[in-house]
């Protein structure tokens, strides 16, 4: 340890210099010394002991009360050294924990990964960004051989690791119910059973599920208490909220869900989102739905993926780059 070996001589130099003349430049040297000694895990009590020893060397006639006072100081600083070492060890643990969560987030990413289907006449864009490392939002697309695309968007109330764990379960529950995929209301009913049985009662899941038939351009959907999205009418240039009633998943075993249908015309859009989008907060309060819709309006001429990306960037900026909740936005745009 080169620093430790040189430490004594270095400290002697600085101390002698400072006793001779109390200059700021020497204090600056002392600051640099302390940074180096912290880097080299030198504890406070070692510094006190060093100080005492050097002082005794420099002034052999030093009064004994000064010597004794350093022994007391050393004992006191030992406690600080104690706390300091614990702090170091906790910091190390925190680093480890963080890298563990990062790995978990990667695993989750792979688990929940979904490909956006490419079909003629329909342009789809999707973005999902977690507030922390792990995502409690989830979206999923499945394209089947009957010219249908299944679209699911879900949000676990809460965020972070518990929400993410819960979401992984839901994804597997969904994968295991393929026969119900073209009936949104039945799919939600089945998922409701699974969530009710397997998820902690304090945890709730909202979900919107839709089937888009890209031959007939018919959209059937059902919602389990999920944040309402919007339809955009390309002819009237109007947004309307998607009204779909239904209880959140996991509350009541017997919940039934109503299925709705909507014809999608050329130039129309379906906008689905999680509450992380509508609950974006700025210093002036929540982002109003109207604000969100004006953003969408502004980017209407772009591709669906571009629109969601730009809206995310805009909302991220007005919130000073601090997401409060997981953010998921999906746009389906029927080409003109």
């Amino acid at each position, binding site marked *: 340890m080169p620093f430790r070996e040189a430490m004594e001589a270095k400290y002697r130099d600085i101390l002698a210099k400072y006793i001779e003349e109390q200059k700021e430049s020497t204090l600056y040297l002392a600051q640099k010394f302390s940074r180096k000694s912290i880097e080299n895990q030198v504890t406070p009590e070692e510094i006190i*002991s060093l100080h005492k020893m050097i002082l005794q060397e420099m002034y052999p006639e030093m009064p004994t009360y000064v010597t004794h006072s350093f022994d007391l100081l050393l004992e006191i600083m*030992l406690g600080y050294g104690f706390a300091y070492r*614990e702090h170091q*060890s906790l910091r190390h*643990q925190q680093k480890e924990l963080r890298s563990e969560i990062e790995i978990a987030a990667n695993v989750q990413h792979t688990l929940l990964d979904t490909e956006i289907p490419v079909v003629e006449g329909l342009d789809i864009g999707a973005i999902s960004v977690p507030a922390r490392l792990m995502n409690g939002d989830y979206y999923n697309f499945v394209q089947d051989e009957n010219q249908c695309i299944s679209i699911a968007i879900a949000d676990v109330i809460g965020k972070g690791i518990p929400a993410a764990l819960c979401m992984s379960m839901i994804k597997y529950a969904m994968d295991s119910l393929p026969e119900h995929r073209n009936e949104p209301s039945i799919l939600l009913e089945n998922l409701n059973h699974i969530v009710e049985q397997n998820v902690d009662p304090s945890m709730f899941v909202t979900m919107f599920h839709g089937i888009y038939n890209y031959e007939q351009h018919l959209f059937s959907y059902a919602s389990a208490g999920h944040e309402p999205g919007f339809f955009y009418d390309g002819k009237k240039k109007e947004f309307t909220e998607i009204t779909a009633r239904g209880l959140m998943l996991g509350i009541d075993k017997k919940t039934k869900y109503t299925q709705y249908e909507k014809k999608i015309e050329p130039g129309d859009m379906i906008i689905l989102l999680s509450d992380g989008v509508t609950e974006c907060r700025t210093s002036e309060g929540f982002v109003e739905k109207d604000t969100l819709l004006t953003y969408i309006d502004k980017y209407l001429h772009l591709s669906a993926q571009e629109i969601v990306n730009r809206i995310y960037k805009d909302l991220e900026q007005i919130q000073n780059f601090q997401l409060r909740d997981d953010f998921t936005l999906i746009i389906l745009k029927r080409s003109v």
Partner: protein
Amino acid sequence: MDIQSCVNIQTEWDIVAARQLGRNVAKELGFGVVDQARITTAISELARNIFIYAHKGRVCIEKMNDKGHAGLRIIAIDSGPGINDIRLAMEDGYSTSGGLGAGLPGVKRLMDEFQIVSSPGKGTEITAIKWIR
């Protein structure tokens, strides 16, 4: 030959006696001032644990010699409630000291070797060694 001396821990004053014993032995063995203070703090923590949690026990100090290498061994024995989850007790931040770095992990860091044996309902035996550098 190892020479062992012990202090029974029953009152808070006994903690001081244990500290004194440890410091004297550390000085005799030729430990530096910082290490003397570290050994004493470790003894103090262990004796305090006995006083607070087990109410009764003893702290023994032993001079060691391993092929000419001198060291000091602390043995803290009590017949208190024991520790249920040693792994947890050895975790930083768990100790009731309120995260001041004390507690068992603190003692372990102050010493070179550390060993703990505990069975719930029977008691705890902690051995810690510091070698002269």
